[in-house]
């Protein structure tokens, strides 16, 4: 213990006497470790060696930080600090040196860092690769003409290497095959396992009889190639999962609790109990279901219902978790928390909808269903044929083994993962995160695309509609009033004024009237900005636009009208999907007027308004053929799960992102049309790969059945087909690189995760 502690003691202690008592320091340090904070930060802006040192030094120099370590691949920094260090302080420190940092929920992220399965696969791959190389060297000398004792010696050495290596490296296949057989099913792993085991067994037998042909190298190569396919598959999914979890981790589940004595403290969501008083500041999301006890405000319910119009909230109003508090501080009494809250009430609906999707049969499954019995029958027939014809058991078993090895789905095992890895990598660079392995196949087979409106086709942020009668002075006054508010309409006014370069006039005694608006004094005249009910404004009955009103003194109020802005690329995406022959629909929970306006803007003819969450899911089930659902809100969750394949933007609620197969990381929707093209292409490549593998089989199988196959032919057929299949798959990835690199750069996370892939 002292050996490693010594350098620390000598460097940390000021006088030699202190160095004599290192154990006290060690004890203190170990005691301190029990009370330390682990903080995870996401730093999407890091990109070079200089960034690593700068960030690590800045963090280490922050008082109270014990250790800081940057992971450039994941663009994260993990910090170990004194318990009283808050993430906010560290974010501020990093902001000062020019890095944009976000806190990550350490618990959520911790799940992603321990990728045991991936490491295990890599280890098996290493063992199989090592053994395959050595056995191949020995086999080459046998094929080159080693004879008698030398050949037997080489076979025995090969056996000694192969046996333990296969036992270790082949376990994933053995386990899967055993599980499938126990349930009376056949999957791809059954012929694989049978081929490997039979090859090793007959080769051992041949070696013992000092025979000419041993298939040790074939068995190992098979294991190696198949493990490579498994590892590719695993890595693609692990990267997508870790990026998806990072999105979830960005929303740290916290709430402000008001204790009985009136003090407020920030606590994790899990620490809240029913009956607690929770404070929600303006601009904050409601953390739990509850009833307002104090305060008045307006609520943005768009993520839950799809309505863009804010609703009033007064004491006694029931709130659902996930709503956004806009104008005034609220105090609510928690009525349901976590799993009981309305955010989770839709889980049942999702579970029911999802059960339909698990019935999906992937292309690989379908291929295996045709393939596995065929191979077994062929192998058994050639065994029977040769046994009956020659009466030589040894030769018959040898030929049966050769048939199994030659037909073994080496290329088939690589066919799907190689394509999905290449296609997912390409889409990732464009800002799409493929969460499910079969999502691309399902996306390729859809016939209808259903969009949600709020937050999906539109950005969810209103913008001012310019009106000719509105003078600059009025707009500047309205912007000055709205400056301090978190209300989306007020923010839109401020943005509009900034865009025109207007100077804000001086205002006195500005105050927010929660739930209604803002009022202030300008040169002794009261000016108000707010709700139509408050100021007595009235729009045309047919006018569906959002509005806010400005009143100067007692004059008649002036209206400002707003429209929810379309996401960039929305119209392009709809047009692109239509060009591919897909039927595009818009189903929203919002009012008919608002939905019709957006539908007309993006070019969708078929729309449906005021649909409930269950109604949406039902509408999707009623559509014939494959359906792609694109949505973001809680009201879309069931529909997302009910559709054959679903996409949600990164700004969606966690529940919606979990329910969907693909997450759109950037703002631009135009990649959707591209994504569908890539999916169609990927599916075509998978089919091509199956065909290539079949052609190899058609050529090689007659040789094997005729008893002409040697280990050399098996090795050649196997590696040639695997390489062809992999190269065919890579054709997808190559095309993606040159196109649209700029678009992928939009989201920091995209870059971060693309670094993991490329």
């Amino acid at each position, binding site marked *: 213990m002292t050996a490693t502690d010594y350098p620390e003691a000598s460097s940390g202690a000021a006088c030699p006497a202190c160095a004599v008592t290192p154990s006290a320091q060690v004890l203190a340090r170990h005691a301190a470790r029990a009370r330390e904070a682990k903080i995870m930060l996401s730093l999407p802006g890091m990109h070079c060696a200089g960034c690593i040192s700068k960030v690590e030094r800045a963090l280490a120099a922050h008082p109270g930080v014990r250790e800081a370590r940057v992971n450039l691949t994941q663009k994260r920094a993990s910090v170990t600090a004194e318990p009283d260090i808050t993430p906010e302080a560290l974010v501020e420190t990093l902001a000062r040196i020019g890095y944009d940092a976000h806190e990550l929920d350490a618990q959520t992220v911790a799940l992603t*860092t321990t990728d045991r399965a991936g490491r295990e696969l890599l280890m098996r791959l290493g063992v199989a690769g090592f053994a395959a190389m050595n056995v191949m060297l020995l086999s080459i000398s046998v094929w080159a003409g080693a004879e008698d004792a030398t050949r037997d010696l080489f076979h025995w050495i090969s056996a000694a290497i192969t046996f333990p290596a296969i036992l270790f490296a082949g376990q994933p296949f053995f386990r899967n095959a055993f599980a499938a057989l126990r349930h009376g099913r056949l999957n791809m792993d059954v012929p694989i396992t049978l081929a490997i085991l039979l090859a090793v067994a007959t080769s051992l037998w041949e070696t013992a009889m000092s025979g000419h042909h041993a298939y040790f190298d074939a068995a190992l190569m098979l294991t190696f190639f198949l493990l490579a396919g498994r590892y590719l598959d695993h890595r693609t999914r692990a990267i997508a999962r870790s990026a998806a979890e990072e999105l979830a981790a960005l929303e740290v589940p916290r709430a402000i609790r008001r204790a009985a004595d009136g003090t407020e403290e920030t606590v994790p969501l899990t620490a809240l109990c029913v009956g607690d008083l929770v404070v929600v500041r303006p601009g904050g999301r409601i953390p739990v279901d509850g009833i307002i006890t104090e305060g008045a405000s307006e609520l943005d319910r768009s993520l839950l219902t799809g309505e863009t119009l804010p609703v009033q909230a007064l004491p006694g109003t029931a709130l659902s978790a996930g709503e956004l508090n806009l104008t005034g501080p609220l105090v609510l009494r928690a009525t349901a928390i976590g799993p009981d809250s309305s955010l989770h009430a839709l889980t049942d609906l999702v579970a029911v909808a999802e059960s339909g999707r698990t019935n999906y049969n992937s292309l690989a499954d379908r291929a295996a269903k045709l393939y596995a019995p065929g191979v077994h029958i062929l192998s058994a027939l050639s065994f029977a044929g040769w046994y009956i014809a020659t009466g030589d058991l040894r030769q018959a078993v040898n030929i049966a083994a050769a048939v199994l090895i030659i037909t073994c789905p080496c290329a088939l095992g690589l066919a799907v993962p190689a394509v999905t890895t290449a296609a997912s990598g390409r889409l990732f660079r464009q800002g799409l995160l493929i969460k499910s392995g079969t999502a691309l196949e399902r996306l390729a087979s859809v016939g209808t695309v259903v969009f949600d409106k709020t937050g999906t086709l539109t950005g969810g942020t209103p913008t001012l509609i310019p009106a000719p009668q509105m003078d600059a002075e009025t707009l500047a006054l309205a912007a000055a009033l709205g400056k301090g508010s978190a209300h989306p309409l007020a923010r839109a006014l401020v943005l509009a004024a900034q865009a025109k370069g207007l100077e804000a006039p001086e205002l006195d005694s500005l105050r927010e009237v929660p739930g209604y608006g803002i009022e202030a004094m300008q040169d002794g005249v009261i000016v108000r900005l707010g709700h139509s009910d408050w100021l007595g404004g009235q729009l045309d009955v047919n006018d569906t636009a959002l509005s806010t009103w400005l009143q100067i003194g007692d004059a008649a109020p002036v209206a400002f009208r707003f429209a929810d802005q379309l996401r960039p690329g929305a119209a392009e995406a709809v047009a692109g999907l239509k060009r591919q022959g897909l039927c595009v629909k818009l189903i929203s929970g919002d009012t008919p007027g608002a939905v019709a306006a957006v539908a007309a803007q993006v070019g969708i003819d078929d729309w449906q308004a005021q649909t409930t969450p269950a109604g949406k899911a039902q509408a999707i089930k009623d559509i014939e053929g494959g359906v792609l659902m694109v949505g973001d809100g809680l009201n879309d969750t069931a529909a997302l799960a009910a559709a054959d394949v679903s996409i949600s933007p990164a700004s969606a609620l966690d529940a919606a992102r979990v329910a969907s197969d693909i997450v759109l990381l950037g703002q631009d929707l135009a990649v959707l049309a591209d994504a569908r093209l890539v999916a169609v292409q990927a599916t075509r490549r998978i089919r091509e790969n199956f065909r290539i593998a079949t052609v190899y089989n058609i050529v090689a199988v007659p040789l094997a059945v005729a008893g002409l196959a040697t280990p050399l032919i098996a090795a050649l057929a196997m590696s040639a087909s695997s390489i062809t299949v992999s190269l065919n798959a890579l054709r997808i990835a190559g095309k993606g690189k040159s196109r649209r690199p700029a678009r992928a750069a939009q989201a920091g996370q995209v870059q971060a995760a693309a670094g993991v892939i490329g």
Partner: protein
Amino acid sequence: MDVLRFLIPVSLGLGGLGLLAFFWTLRSNQYEDPDGDSRRILTDDYDDAPKLQDKAGTSETPTKPNQQ
């Protein structure tokens, strides 16, 4: 062909060493941050005084000579 008696064990042994080295890199988390590790080598932060490690594997911040 007597030389095979030495050559085969030697070559297998060397290959085995490589395999063991691969295991070691896997177990000591050397594939966690391939991007960062390839760039860290370019910085001279720890050239004169290596980053100190204690038993639990966490490391302390050393006195950096080139830091003001």
